[in-house]
C-alpha cells in the first residue's frame, strides 16, 4: 500500500468515525430526551431503540457473510474471506447484545426473562450457528482450506434462516406483532416520534457496522502482511 492511498483511506475513515459519532450522539439525544415515554410499558420501552437496531445489524451482517461466502467460492479471492470473517464476528457481537437486552426488556414487561417464543428461539439458534462458524475458523490453519470450509458454512447457515423462521413460527409465538412494518404499510403502528428515534438509531448502528468492518478488515490485512513477512524471515534464515 503506497502512502497516498493510505492517506486517502485515513481521510475516509475519519469521515466515517465522525459521522458515526454524530449519529450516535443524535440517537442518544432522541432516545433519552426527545422521544416521549411509552404509556403502557414505561421507561424500559426505550431499550427497544438499542434492541431492534442491534438485531437489524446482526441480520445484515449475517447476510453479508452469505454474499461474501458465495463470492469467495466463485472468485477464490482472499479479500472476500476477510470480509466474511469480519462480518460474522460483528454479527455475533451484536446478536449477543440482542440476546442480552431482550431479557432485560422482557423481564419487567412479560414477567419472565426468557420465553420460548419464535423470534427469541430463532435469534438464539442464529447466534449458535455463527458462533460455530467462528469456531470453525479457529479449527483449521489459515489458508485456502479454512476459507473454503467457512464459506460453505456461511452459505449453509444463511440458507437455514428461512427454515428456522417458519419452523419456529409454527411451533409457537408470543412476540409483539411487528409494529414498524405492518400489513397497512410502513410505520403505521407507531407514533411518528418513536419511529423517527428508531430511524436515527438504526442509522447510527448501520454506520457503526461499516466503521467496525473497515477497522477489522484493515487489521486482517495487516495480519496477512505480518504472516507473509514471518514466512519470508523463516525462509531467508
Amino acid at each position, binding site marked *: 500500500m503506497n502512502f497516498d492511498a493510505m492517506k486517502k483511506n485515513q481521510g475516509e475513515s475519519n469521515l466515517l468515525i465522525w459521522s458515526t459519532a454524530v449519529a450516535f450522539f443524535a440517537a442518544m439525544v432522541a432516545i433519552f430526551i426527545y422521544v416521549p415515554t411509552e404509556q403502557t410499558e414505561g421507561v424500559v420501552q426505550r431499550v427497544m431503540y438499542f434492541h431492534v437496531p442491534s438485531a437489524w445489524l446482526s441480520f445484515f451482517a449475517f447476510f453479508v457473510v452469505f454474499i461474501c461466502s458465495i463470492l469467495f*467460492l466463485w472468485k477464490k479471492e482472499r479479500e472476500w474471506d476477510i470480509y466474511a470473517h469480519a462480518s460474522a464476528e460483528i454479527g455475533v457481537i451484536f446478536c449477543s447484545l440482542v440476546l442480552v437486552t431482550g431479557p432485560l426488556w422482557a423481564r419487567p414487561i412479560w414477567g419472565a426473562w426468557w420465553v420460548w417464543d419464535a423470534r427469541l428461539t430463532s435469534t438464539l*439458534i442464529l447466534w*449458535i*450457528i455463527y458462533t*460455530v462458524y467462528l*469456531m*470453525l475458523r479457529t*479449527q*483449521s490453519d489459515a489458508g485456502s*482450506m479454512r476459507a*473454503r*470450509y467457512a*464459506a*460453505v*458454512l456461511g*452459505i*449453509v*447457515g444463511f*440458507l*437455514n434462516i428461512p*427454515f*428456522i423462521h*417458519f*419452523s*419456529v413460527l*409454527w*411451533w409457537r409465538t408470543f412476540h409483539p406483532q411487528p409494529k414498524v412494518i405492518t400489513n397497512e404499510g410502513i410505520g403505521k403502528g407507531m407514533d411518528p416520534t418513536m419511529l423517527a428515534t428508531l430511524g436515527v438509531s438504526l442509522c447510527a448502528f448501520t454506520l457503526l457496522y461499516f466503521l467496525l468492518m473497515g477497522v477489522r478488515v484493515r487489521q486482517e490485512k495487516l495480519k496477512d502482511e505480518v504472516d507473509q513477512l514471518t514466512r519470508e524471515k523463516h525462509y531467508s534464515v
Partner: protein
Amino acid sequence: MNLFLSQVAAIAWKDFVTELKSRELFGAMFIFALLVILIFIFSINLSVVKASEVGPGILWAAFLFSGTLGLNRSFMLEQENGCLMGLMLAPADRTVIYFGKLISNFIFLSIMELFILPLFMIFFNIDILEHLLPLLFVIFLGTLGFCALGTLLSSLASNLKYREIMLPVLLYPLLVPIVIAVVRMTGQALNGTPLSGMMNWIGLTVSFDIIYIGVSIMTIDHILEE
C-alpha cells in the same frame, strides 16, 4: 447418467461390504439409540406425562444421536487410511462421492430405525401399526434431510482438528428446523392425523431436503479439494 449411477452404487456398496466384514458400526448405533431412549425414560415419569406427547421427541433424539455416530465414521474411516485420497483420485465427479456416502448413511440409519421402532412401540405402549404408512413417510423425509446435511458437514468436519466434537456442534443447530418439523409430524401421525393435515410441515421438510441436497452438490467440490 448410467455411469454416474453405477459409480454412486460402487461407493455405497463398498461401505456395505466394509460394514458386513467388520460389523463395528451397526451394533454400536443400535445400542446407542437404545441407551438414549432408556436415559429419557429414566428422566421422565411415564405415569404423569402422556407417552404419545413425549414419545416422538425421544424417538428422534435417539435417531439423531446414533445417526451422528454413523456420520462421524463415514468420512473419518476414509481419512484414517488415506482412502479419501484414493476416492478423490478415482476418475469420478466429486458429487459421486457425496451421493455414495449419502446413500450408505441413509440406508444404515434407516435399517437402524426399523429395528428401533418396534422397541419404541413396546416401551411407550404406543400402537404404531395403525398409522404405519404416514409414520414411515415422515421418518423417510426426516432421515433424508438429516443425511443430506450430515454427509456434507461430515466431509467438512473430517479435516478439522477436533472432528468428533465439531460434527455435532456444526450439525445440530442447522438441524433445528427439521427436528421441530419431524417431531411435530411424528406426533401428529401417531395421533392419527392424515398426511394432508400436516402439509405445511411436509412442505418445509421436502424443501429442506431439496435445498440441502442442491447446496451439497454445488459446494462438495470446494470441500473435497486438496
